[in-house]
């Protein structure tokens, strides 16, 4: 295709980066937000934020809710309140689906201000709100991210030297390239890990051939595989109904068994049956691996079935990758490192997208392969792909405060606001000249971010003036992070203005947003 391996990798990196970068930005942004899904959920349900019900009492109330509303579901799963979230989640199985509802532990009823909360970001970043097809799309895009990283390493011959090179005033193209390289190299180990581990979680879905070959094609065959790979006890339902022991007792026994207060989840298989199985995992395990801390009991007698059955090596590897991706281990420091690394990766993707047209407009790419018309489209799509998801996430939080708390189908309305604002961002970007679109959309993002804490003060009792004096950092951090985003937007806008003036004086080094108008 090109003369050397390095040249063809440069071509691949450039073009796949452009096409897939448009969606990768949104995936990395929402993925980074997913690290703090519980804190965001908590922020989105301020009415329940103050309740402090112990997990033992809370799960009993959740079980009551599930018993009253979904007694025949094949399984239940409860995420009890933790120090990260005062609300709890109750899931029930419907076929292959697991719908859920947020409950207020103080009342055991559906929490006021029904919302998908931070869970929406988790869901979006691996499904794009499009079900199984979405998981396949994210898988393809994730594979291209992996290829983008690997081809980036190939073409980046001066990887060590460039790590220390940043020339912010060296002209638009050079400083965007430096920023792209520095951000990418800085977070390279993280990005490789998070991309590959994300693919590994769904490896079974993406490459089903080994299981089909060794086990068979049917659903039962793949269940057999999961059973062998994940050591746990399964009991067949007997169809003899029996009364489940109070779930709070199992929480207490798990807390004692692992010496931790925080329980990640408690699940019950065939809850009304004599062979009901209760499974629990503690949260904030000291180990990376999810679910070798699994503990299981008989739901009717309370008999211990198993505790921490060991994994075999390959399965253990896959579980460690899953654990690395889910970031449930460690504490606040780990979470912030994940969040910041994720955002740096997001910024790396954004700078890469900008670089594409900067290089071509300045004819650094000599055999310029694209027309100016194409670059105009690229610039506009860049606005919708970078400013769009930021505005959409902010709109999601604004909708949470502005929609009436008792509204029917409330979560759907909030998610609707997310997509509606993203669509508006695209329409606006296509309508306005690219430079104006950047300015206007980042101004909108700055305003939405800076005003959100104020809106919070007007619409809830859990705002900064309350949460800061009370030292409720997890809640305050949501407002403060949004404020920081607002300040970052203001800084970016100021730089846009400064560049413009500098260009007007010197008549050179027109930056991306100027060129975009031509």
């Amino acid at each position: 295709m090109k003369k050397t391996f390095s040249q063809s990798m440069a071509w691949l990196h450039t073009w796949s980066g452009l096409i897939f970068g448009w969606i990768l930005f949104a995936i990395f942004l929402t993925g980074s937000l997913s690290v703090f899904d519980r804190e965001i959920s908590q922020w989105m349900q301020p009415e329940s934020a103050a309740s402090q019900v112990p997990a033992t009492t809370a799960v009993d109330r959740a079980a009551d809710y599930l018993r009253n509303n979904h007694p025949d579901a094949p399984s239940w799963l409860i995420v009890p309140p933790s120090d990260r979230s005062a609300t709890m989640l109750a899931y029930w199985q419907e076929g292959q689906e697991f719908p859920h509802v947020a409950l207020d532990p103080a009342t055991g009823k559906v929490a006021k201000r029904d919302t998908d909360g931070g869970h929406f970001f988790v869901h979006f970043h691996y499904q794009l709100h499009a079900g199984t097809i979405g998981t396949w799309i994210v898988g393809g895009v994730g594979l291209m991210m992996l290829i983008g990283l690997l081809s980036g390493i190939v073409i980046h011959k001066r990887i060590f030297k460039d790590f220390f090179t940043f020339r912010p005033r060296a002209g638009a193209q050079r400083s965007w390239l430096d920023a792209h390289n520095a951000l990418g190299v800085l977070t390279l180990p993280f990005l490789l890990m998070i991309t590959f581990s994300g693919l590994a979680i769904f490896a079974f879905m993406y490459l089903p051939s080994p299981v089909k070959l060794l086990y068979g094609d049917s659903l039962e065959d793949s269940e057999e595989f999961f059973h062998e790979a994940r050591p746990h006890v399964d009991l067949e339902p007997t169809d003899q109904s029996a009364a489940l022991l109070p779930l709070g007792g199992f929480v207490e026994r798990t807390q004692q068994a692992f010496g931790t207060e925080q329980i990640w989840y408690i699940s019950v298989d065939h809850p009304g049956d004599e062979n009901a199985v209760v499974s629990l995992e503690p949260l904030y395990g000291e180990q990376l691996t999810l679910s070798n801390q699994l503990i299981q009991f008989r739901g009717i007698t309370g008999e211990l079935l198993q505790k921490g059955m060991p994994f075999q090596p390959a399965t253990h590897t896959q579980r460690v990758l899953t654990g690395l991706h889910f970031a449930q281990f460690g504490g606040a420091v780990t979470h912030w490192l994940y969040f910041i690394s994720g955002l740096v990766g997001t910024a790396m993707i954004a700078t890469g997208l900008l670089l594409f047209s900067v290089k071509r407009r300045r004819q650094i790419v000599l055999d310029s392969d694209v027309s100016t018309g194409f670059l105009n489209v690229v610039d506009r799509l860049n606005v919708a792909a970078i400013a769009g998801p930021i505005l959409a996430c902010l709109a999601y939080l604004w909708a949470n405060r502005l929609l009436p708390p008792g509204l029917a189908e409330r979560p759907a309305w909030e998610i609707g606001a997310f997509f509606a604002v993203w669509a508006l961002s695209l329409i606006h970007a296509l309508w306005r000249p690219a430079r104006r679109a950047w300015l206007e959309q980042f101004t909108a993002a700055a305003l939405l971010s800076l005003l959100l804490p104020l809106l919070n003060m007007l619409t809830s009792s859990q705002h900064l003036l309350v949460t800061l004096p009370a030292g409720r950092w997890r809640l305050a951090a949501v407002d403060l992070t949004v404020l920081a985003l607002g300040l970052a937007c203001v800084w970016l806008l100021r730089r846009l203005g400064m560049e413009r003036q500098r260009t007007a004086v010197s008549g050179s080094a027109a930056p991306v947003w100027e060129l975009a108008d031509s």
Partner: protein
Amino acid sequence: MPTDSLLSRFMHLMPQSRHVMSLASRIAAALFGGYAVAYFAAAALAVILPLVRSEAAVTAMLLGLLVYAAAVMWVFSARSAAHAWLVLLIIAAVCAAVAYLPGMLS
């Protein structure tokens, strides 16, 4: 001379459209040929690896993902799209034979 100008315009487009066709073929090779290689390589690994079957399956799936990434990168550095297709299909066929022939023969 409308025929002439039409012909010359067509001739002018030829190299361009051949380039586009070859690029499309290469992208298709990366997407589908690469997936076929990853799919059958994972199946072959699952058979070859001397492990308990759940372990063999998990190892094969994880390595298969890397095979796909490597295949896509290779397709874009291959001499030509046709060459890329040929090599990918041969590898996929060999892997499929290793994976499925023993089961068919026994």
